């Protein structure tokens, strides 16, 4: 059980791509910063579909994406902390 943290957009870094290669169904992928942008891209959304995905509310809101990302589960910083404790390991990609 791993919590995968992605902080940059797939246009900036290979973090999401690499994470998706190794994430398993028991894991959770948390998108923050520019990584939330990947949820606008059909191809990334398709690949993320088979995983448990959450996005940091603050970063989604700041980018004006709240209405566009209605289907995504949003979490706040408190949830982020709880998630970090719940999973055995956190990998910051």
């Amino acid at each position, binding site marked *: 059980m791993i919590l995968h943290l992605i902080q940059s957009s797939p246009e900036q870094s*290979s973090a999401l791509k690499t994470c998706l290669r*190794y994430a*398993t169904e028991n894991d959770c992928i948390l998108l923050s910063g520019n990584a939330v942008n990947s949820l606008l891209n059909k191809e990334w959304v398709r690949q993320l579909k088979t995983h448990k995905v959450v996005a940091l509310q603050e970063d989604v809101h700041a980018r004006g994406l709240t209405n566009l990302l209605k289907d995504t589960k949003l979490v706040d910083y408190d949830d982020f902390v709880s998630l970090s404790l719940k999973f*055995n390991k956190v990998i*910051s990609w």
Partner: protein
Amino acid sequence: MKKLCIVFKQPPHGTAHGREGLDLSLLSASFEQEVSLLFTNEGVLTLVKDQDPESIGAKDYIATLGALPLYEIDTVIVCEQSLLELGLTESDLRIGVSVINSELISGHLNDVDEVIVF
């Protein structure tokens, strides 16, 4: 003793990530941590033969890979899929490695105590 996996996901040279990852690997190993290395994406290019980084003014940290056995870093994993994407085979690499698939790599990431990505 902790099991530490250090992931190289970026190409060598141009940024300091690879060198920093390797420094951390050697440092951790000299403090008797069980260190494994994973090369994925363009990070696999770190292992390609016949590099000449000094010709572009970059530090030749690639040479340091040869010292891994002396640091008792024996687990060097290369992502099979990444090699395929770049059209490389194991014979293009300068050191002996284990080329394994994503599923086995997932298992390895689960097994170790900490994963640090560069």
